[in-house]
Structure formats: C-alpha cells, structure tokens
C-alpha cells in the first residue's frame, strides 16, 4: 500500500487504522481485487443486450438461453501462482473459477484452459507446462467438471511469466439465480467448506499485483493447496441449498478471503455486518485477526441465510460432510465490525473496502518503438519451399497437435460433449432440451503486440466464427486481459487499445461483454509479456445441429472451398514469419466489421444446413496449415491451387474453409452469394499427399504421413523423450 493510499484510509476512518483494518484495506485495495488501474477503462465495453441477465461486476456473467434456462460464464487468470508452483497454482485456479460460477446458483458443466509458456526446448518450461497441465487435470477431473477445450501457445516472452487462464461455464434454471448479497438485518453468515489456515496470506496483493524479480522467492506466501474433493462436496451442498431455496445470497472466498466475502455482500445489500473470528473453523490455532481476514485458504463459501432456515442449512452441510460455522450476522447501518477474543479488532464502513478503493488514471502513450516495428519487414520476393515451411510450422508446439494436453483432461463427463477438444469451437448439448452451447477461446500475443487494437478485435471475430462453425449464434463474450506493468505508459496504451478493439468488434456484432478479468504485472526482470488478451465466446445453437461439421469428416473427392476474402498477402505477426522467416514486424491487417458479420452468418448457415461436413477457420498458420489440419484429421491428401504463395500463409481475418461433396457446389455458391461473401473452389481432397499447384504446376508437395508425424510429435515428442 502506498503512502497516499494509507492517507485515504486515515481520511475514511478519521483515525489511524488498526492492524487488522490495515490488513483488510491492503488486500481489498490491491490491484487484483480493486482493478484500480483498469477500472477507468473497462466502462468502455458494451455490456447490454436483451438476453443479458447479469453483466460484469458479479462473480460471473449470466445470459438467458430461453425456456427458463440461463448460462453463467466467467474467466480468470492464475499466472503468478502457477509460476511459483505450477501444479497447485493451476489447480487452485480451476477451483476458484468453479466457485465463481456455482456462486451464481449454476451447476458448472465445463472448463476451458488457455495456457502459454516459454519454448519447450528449455527444461524449466517443460516443467512448468507439465505441472500446469497436471494441475488442471488433477483438479478438474477429480472435482468432476470436464475440461472440454482451450489453447496452448509458446513464446519466449512467457518464459519467466507463464499465462494460465481458465474459464468455466455453468447452467441453471432461471429461478435458481443467486447473487452475492447479504440480505436484511438479522441474516446469518455461514462459512462453509475447508478450515482456514495461513495459505496464501496476501496472495492477491503480493503475487498478482507486483512483478517478479530476483528476490521474488522472499515474497512467497504459503502456497495454496487445492482440494478438489472438498470442492466437489461444496458444489453439491451449495446446489442443494439453492434447490431448497435456503440462501438469501452467497459469495465465494477467493482473493482477500473473509475480508472480501463479508464486506462486498454487505455493501451490495447496503448493510453492515458483525463477524466473530473466534467462530471460524481453523486449521492452525494461533492465527492473528489480520491473518484470518486475509487468508486465501481454498474451497470456502460464505452463505447468507435466514435465521429460521439455519438448521436446515446446517443439515445439508452435514449430509455432504462439509464443515460449517456461523460467523456473523447482518446489521443495519453499513458498518463492518470484526471481533476476536471478545475485542473489536476492526470497525470500518463495509462499502469503503470495495467501493472507495483508489483508482488510477495511469498515463498511457503509444510506444516509441511501434513505428519502427511497423516499418520492419522481411524481403519476401523469393518464394519459400512450401512443403518444408509447412512441416516447420506444424512441428512447432504452438501449431502442433495439442492432444498430449487434452487427453489428460476428462472432457466427456456429463455426456454433453458433442464437439470436444481438437476441433474448432466446442459444442455441448443441454440434455432434455433442443439447445446446444458453443464455446471458443482465442488469444494471439504476437498480433496484439504488433497492434493491440486490431489484434484484440480480430480475436473477437475469430471466436465468433468458431462458434458459428458449429451452428451457433454468438451471444456473449468474457475476456481475460493479461498485460505487463501498468505503471509503464506503453503497457497502459496496449491495454486501452485492447479494450477499444474488443469493444468495437463486440459492438459491430452486437455481442455484449458479460465479464472478464485483468492480470497486470506480467513481467520478469523488467521485460513485459506481449499484451495477451484472451477472448471467450459463448454461442447458442437452438436447435442443436445433429451432425455438426467436424475436421475428420473430409473424404476423397470432396471439394475444398475458401469462403471470404482470398487475396491477402500480409504476413505481419504470422506463424510463417515467426517460424520460417524468424521475424516479427509489420502491421497486421485491420479487421472489417461488415465482412466479419457476413462470414460469421454464412458459417452458421452452412453448419445448420449441414451442407459441408467440414468447416475450419483460417487462423494461425494461414490457409496452408488449415488445409493440413483437415487432411491430417480426415486422413486424406489434397490438391490446392494458388496464385501467390503469400496467400497460403497469410493470416488475414474473416475466412474459413468448407469441404463438401461436388453436389453441394450450387448450394455453397448460393449461400455465399446470398451473404455477400466470396466463394472460391480452391481444390479437392484425395491422394496421400498435400499438393500446392500454381498455373497447373505443382510447386509444393509433401506426403500426408510426413505432415502428420510432424504435427503429432510437436508437443508429444518434446515431452515424452
């Protein structure tokens, strides 16, 4: 806490704070909890739509799916804890995001993970990567929520600062929505779940709100250990409480633990609360009030219950073998009072902790190096060897087969996974209805580094296209903004540009942002990560297509179509430039909102009509990689014609591939024409190699076996040597 912030506390209280009070303010006013650097900018997001039930600000965003069904969605980062202890850091990230969702009354039905590391040739990065994946698997599988998708990428900038973002989707009936409010005076606060220990004291403020440097080990708070078994019992107990209408409100205990879960619900209700720390069930006996208030012990929830229903609440907890203690009571007047050993150890306005946190309008300015970066290009007059380039790209862990990761995750539990990991977007059915939920998560640090506004907007369009390709209408976005040190003006500029890019794209598609998360201080020894926003898109497919397009559905003799603009040559930020030319520079192509809308509409139409068995977007790696992925998954070669090799590797937005039998040609042309989208037949599937032809001459040919081996081994061979 800075001196100025300390003075504000003194001003608020009209006196010097007591030790426990200071502890509460320091965690609640940390960057992680208060969004003090980002809050002034996040208001830019479009957040409204008729189907939004709960927008940003609550634990999770909630949208209306029709027929009394709601979906809750939330994304969260656990970057710094995962660097300190990869397994537990990632595991507790999963635990935390689940609580955010079942706090809303929803049953969590699926998880996604977005993870980024330094290159796998370095053993330390392999250690972090395998630990993070094992942690997500260890927690997600045991808690019993399938991890159905995600993304993994490798760049040097994440070497000292891996990114671990996790997203959770839940569903609920409309009458089961619960909010984090404390209710009327007399309401009882019941702490449910694990006992409180010294875990992660100050974790939120220390770890997530400061940078790593040489002596970060000295700052390490006790590592938090996840207990998925406890969380599983907690989920079932809470869902039973909701079903029996036994809670007025509920709040999870995440960062800032008890401080947050008492003050925020009280403030939301316009109430105060008396809290008795002696009644908190503890793991260690000699904890100070400050430690109890700041502890980030996992798997805890604070339920607010009517006194007449307390016994029933305790009975549900006992049935599920969940410990429960009555720790407080809601009072009129807005003051939070905390007692320990009969002494009043804190007495503060409840709302001051959450609402009076300082905000910083930090200075921002375009980086001085940006113009040079945009001007920096490689000589691309010479045509590369197409086959070799393709092999190099597919053999890179960022573009290769991620099954080493997702086969460690239970991605089938609940029998909802219609399109699981390894395809475009995911598609989950909602049993007992005609509905399906489609989800995609996307990030691209290189593009956002070169142009954060364009890069971020393109992520929104890419996600929306992925969701459309399984037959859904995109309906809501959550975002996770992973950035460097916000005290640097160029980082703040990257941040504001990103917010602008996401906002513009969402506005053009009329998709609201319903939640998100900000992670700053992702830097090591003064070097910031690429600005890395992650976009999570939710879409609704109603009815659920009975045969959604799949990458493995291609057959010899089918035509390959490119839908969308076809003559892009810009390679700025592309995988080709990174992996083949070894260059990063230039300015990525600006997205085009009306083209985006048309292409997304067309993709959805083709998926719903079942015209094309395979749809696949052109994204990282460009057309060549997209074709290769279809060929590998469908186990068939292809012959593709092109006129300029740049077209094969360019990653310009708003394009996708459709693969369909020749009979479908007329329907595809008609649909594309109706949407105002260019449709080009660029080749066909067949044979056992991928051939690229120009003017009827084969200019690149590579056997499917070689391509498949490179792709399959990209991660696996590096991890299982």
């Amino acid at each position, binding site marked *: 806490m800075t001196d100025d912030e300390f003075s504000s506390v003194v001003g608020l209280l009209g006196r010097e704070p007591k030790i426990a009070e200071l502890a509460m303010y320091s965690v609640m006013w940390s960057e992680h909890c208060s969004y003090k650097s980002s809050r002034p900018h996040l208001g830019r997001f479009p957040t409204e739509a008729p189907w939004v039930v709960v927008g940003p600000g609550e634990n999770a965003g909630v949208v209306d799916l029709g027929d009394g069904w709601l979906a809750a969605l939330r994304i969260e980062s656990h970057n710094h804890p995962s660097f*300190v*202890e990869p397994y*537990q850091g990632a595991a507790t990230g999963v635990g935390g995001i689940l609580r955010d969702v079942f706090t809303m009354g929803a049953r969590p039905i699926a998880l996604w993970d977005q993870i980024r590391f330094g290159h796998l040739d370095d053993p330390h990065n392999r250690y972090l990567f395998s630990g993070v994946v094992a942690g997500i698997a260890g927690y997600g599988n045991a808690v019993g929520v399938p991890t159905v998708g995600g993304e993994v990428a490798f760049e040097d900038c994440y070497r000292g600062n891996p990114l671990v973002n996790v997203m959770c989707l839940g569903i609920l009936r409309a009458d089961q929505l619960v909010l984090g409010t404390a209710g009327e005076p007399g309401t009882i606060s019941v702490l449910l779940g*694990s006992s409180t*220990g*010294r*875990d992660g004291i100050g974790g939120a403020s220390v770890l997530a709100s400061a940078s790593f440097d040489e002596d970060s080990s000295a700052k*390490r708070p*006790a*590592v*938090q*250990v*996840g*207990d998925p*078994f*406890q969380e599983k019992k907690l989920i079932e107990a809470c869902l039973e409480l909701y079903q029996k209408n036994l809670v007025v409100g509920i709040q999870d205990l995440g960062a800032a633990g008890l401080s947050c879960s008492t003050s925020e619900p009280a403030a939301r209700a316009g109430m105060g609360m008396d809290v008795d720390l002696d009644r908190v069930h503890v*793991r*260690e006996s000699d904890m100070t009030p400050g430690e109890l208030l700041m502890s980030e*012990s*996992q798997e805890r929830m604070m339920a607010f219950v009517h006194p007449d229903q307390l016994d029933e609440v305790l009975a549900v907890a006992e049935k599920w*073998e969940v410990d429960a203690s009555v720790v407080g009571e809601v009072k009129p007047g807005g003051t939070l009072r905390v007692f320990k050993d009969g002494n009043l150890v804190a007495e503060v306005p409840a709302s001051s902790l959450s609402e009076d946190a300082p905000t910083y309008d930090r200075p921002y300015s375009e980086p001085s190096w940006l113009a040079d970066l945009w001007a920096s290009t490689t000589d691309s007059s010479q045509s590369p060897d197409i086959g070799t380039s393709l092999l190099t790209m597919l053999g890179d862990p960022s573009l290769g087969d991620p099954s080493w990761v997702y086969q460690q995750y239970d991605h089938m539990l609940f029998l909802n996974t219609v399109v699981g990991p390894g395809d475009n977007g995911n598609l989950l059915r909602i049993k007992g209805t005609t509905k399906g939920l489609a989800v995609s998560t996307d990030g691209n640090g290189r593009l956002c580094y070169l142009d954060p506004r364009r890069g971020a907007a393109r992520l929104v369009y890419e996600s929306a296209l992925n969701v459309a390709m399984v037959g859904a209408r995109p309906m809501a976005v959550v975002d996770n903004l992973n950035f460097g040190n916000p005290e640097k003006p160029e980082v703040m500029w990257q941040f504001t540009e990103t917010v602008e890019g996401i906002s513009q794209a969402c506005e053009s598609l009329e998709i609201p942002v319903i939640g998100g998360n900000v992670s700053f201080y992702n830097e090591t020894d003064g070097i910031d990560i690429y600005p890395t926003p992650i976009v999570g898109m939710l879409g609704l497919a109603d009815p659920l297509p009975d045969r959604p397009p799949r990458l493995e559905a291609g057959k010899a003799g089918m035509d390959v179509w490119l839908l969308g603009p076809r003559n892009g040559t810009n390679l700025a930020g592309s995988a080709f430039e990174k992996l083949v030319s070894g260059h990063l520079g230039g300015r990525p192509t600006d997205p085009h909102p009306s083209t985006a809308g048309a292409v997304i509409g067309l993709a959805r139409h083709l998926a719903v009509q079942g015209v094309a068995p395979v749809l696949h977007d052109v994204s990282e790696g460009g057309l060549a990689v997209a074709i290769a992925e279809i060929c590998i998954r469908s186990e068939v070669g292809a012959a593709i014609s092109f006129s300029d090799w740049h077209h094969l590797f360019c990653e310009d937005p708003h394009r996708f591939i459709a693969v369909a039998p020749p009979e479908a040609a007329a329907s595809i042309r008609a649909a594309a024409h109706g949407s105002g989208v260019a449709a080009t037949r660029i080749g066909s599937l067949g044979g056992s190699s991928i051939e690229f032809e120009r003017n009827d001459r084969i200019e690149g040919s590579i056997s499917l076996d070689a391509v498949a081996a490179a792709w399959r081994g990209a991660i696996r061979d590096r991890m299982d040597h």
Partner: protein
Amino acid sequence: MRATVHVKRRSDIADPAGTAVLRGVRDLGYSNVESVRIDKIITLEVGATDPARARADIEAMCEKLLANPVMEDYEIVLEEDGDTA
C-alpha cells in the same frame, strides 16, 4: 549405498489427503486419532561413491527433483551397504 529421503509437506501447507484419511479413520471408529499426515519416503540405491559426495549429490537431487522446495522440507539419511534390514 542406500539413501533415504524423507520428504515432508511444510506444516503451514494444507494436507487434503491427511484430512480425508483422518475422517476415514474416525469413521472406522478410532475416535482418538487426532491428526493424520501423509508424507513420502524415497529410497535410492547409489553406486559406490564416497559418503560426502553422495550426500552432496542427493541434496542436489532433492533441491531439483525429489522435493518441491516451495511446499516441502526434506531429511536425508545415508546408510552404508548392509547397515540395514
């Protein structure tokens, strides 16, 4: 030579497995059990080398691989061949 490394979870770190087993033991009727903790014991057979060198090696292995210094402490016991059952 045999080295035994006792890897113990630091006492301020939560031990979910111990907690679950405690509940299990109590359910079996042993209500006087007050706590349970579960640690690891790693036994390495090391080819001929002098004890000082062996200890240094084992310590390095602990720091790098056998123990997780963020969460665990360790204790090394070295035994000459044949010293033990």
